[in-house]
């Protein structure tokens, strides 16, 4: 579904990604793990068109999207839930969801998606008229995911959905991520610092270190890898 080939990105003279390649099959949950500054967020931002690569190629559903403007990439069904959530704080929950459906013109589909979002995150329905900035961290993350679902995505990229969220909400959000994948066949690329959690919900994983992929394989296998255990899984 998504094929990334030899992708290199740099910020000025500093190289952030040094030629990474990976493939994601339709229907999978794939995770990208690695420490701070490994290039995880850079990878997602380049795929969604927020950053321009220095070299390499990104193919989505068989089409080259490497040089497309970000808003046209979303239109193809590839949706990015950015790090820090980036909800519209001075818009209501309802208006945030409406922005998620910006490219949708079918009113019935929008209503259906809204119902679905409320069914997985009932908390959002209770807060529908509230300014999004007044929500808790966990609720804002629900809103960010819900907002992405409003656009009927085929492929969802989630950047650090556990960041800054109360521990008891983290498991809820991860359950919902799995549910979205199972019930709607939405392919998911998950970026996480919490490697344990990420390997638990994903089917396969890539490990990124200073802009290079150093390891990849089925998540179940990586969970027992001694080297990975020592570095990322706390022994």
């Amino acid at each position: 579904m998504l094929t990334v080939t030899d992708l290199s990105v740099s910020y000025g003279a500093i190289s952030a990604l040094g030629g990474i390649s990976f493939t994601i099959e339709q229907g999978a949950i794939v995770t990208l793990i690695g420490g701070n500054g490994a290039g995880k967020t850079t990878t997602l931002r380049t795929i969604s068109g927020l950053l321009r690569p220095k070299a390499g190629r990104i193919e989505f559903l068989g089409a080259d999207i490497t040089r497309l403007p970000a808003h046209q990439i979303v239109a193809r069904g590839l949706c990015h839930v950015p790090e820090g959530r980036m909800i519209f704080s001075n818009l209501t929950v309802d208006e945030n969801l409406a922005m998620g459906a910006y490219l949708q013109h079918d009113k019935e589909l929008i209503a259906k998606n809204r119902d679905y979002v409320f069914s997985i995150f009932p908390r959002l329905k209770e807060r529908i008229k509230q300014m999004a900035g007044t929500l808790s961290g966990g609720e804002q993350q629900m809103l960010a995911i819900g907002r992405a679902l409003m656009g009927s995505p085929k492929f969802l990229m989630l950047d650090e959905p556990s960041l800054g969220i109360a521990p008891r909400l983290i498991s809820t959000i991860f359950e919902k991520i799995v549910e979205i994948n199972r019930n709607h066949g939405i392919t998911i690329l998950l970026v996480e610092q919490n490697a344990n959690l990420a390997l638990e919900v994903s089917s396969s994983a890539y490990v990124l270190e200073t802009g290079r992929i150093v390891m990849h394989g089925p998540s179940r296998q990586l969970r027992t890898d001694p080297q990975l255990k020592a570095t990322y899984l706390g022994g």
Partner: protein
Amino acid sequence: MSELLQQLLNGLSLGAIYALIALGYTMVYGVLRFINFAHSDVFMVGAFIGYYMGKLVPEHTLWGGLAVLGAAMVGCALLGMTIERLAYRPLRGAPTLNVLITAIGVSLLLEYTGQVFFGAAPRNFPAVFPVRSFSLGGVIVSSNQLIVIAVSVVLMVVLQFIVYRTKIGTAMRAVSLNPKAAVLMGVNNDVVISFTFGLGSALAAAGGILYALNYPSIDPLMGVMPGLKAFVAAILGGIGNIPGAALGGLILGTVETFVAGSEWSTYKDAIAFAILIIILLFRPAGLLGKFTVEKV
């Protein structure tokens, strides 16, 4: 008492014009975070479009006046979008200072191109709307004041509707809050920014026509002073805040008119600006603005 009401009426109608111009400054600041100094010259071009259109329609008719108003608004909307496309879009991502200097350049370009085409000598703006006066319990209400107030109210209600009830308006607010997140929703920010310039410029044009109806001597530098006052009004209300710009305009116009009608009339601008300074000392983000730390 009737003198007070009279001055209040005069002040509000001047303030409504400032408000219309201030809205353009504040909306553009909202989406691009810079002050479009050329905005006051779009106001001037609006008055000149009205001047030439006014020759094509019979004087003293309501439909003629509205046609002039509409033509100026459409003309300036196109002008504003063209300015954005040619001068500001190539600078997207450049430091704000570069864009500000460009804006001053565009402003000078419009002013002096205006002098080439229209001449520097003031011209007399035609009375396109019907002119009458009414006396209401000692307060003299001119039809021009009624037109100013009616047109401003209608335009602000329409603006409010666009910004808070339509998809493009929600997108404008989203771009203003977080342009990157808006792109990730599939919003083409260039389209939204262009629309914002069109909307703001159309309001400036309406301001230009209404101003020219009340002060019918127009010249290519006529935008400078009202433009500055409207800019101050936008800051006063809280830059980037739409109701704030309207409120700031009304306050500034009213204060200026009251001072002009008093024994300190020579100092009317000084006092108006002194009030601005005092308000900003106590509320640095403006009356309706929220204090936020600029992110680096």
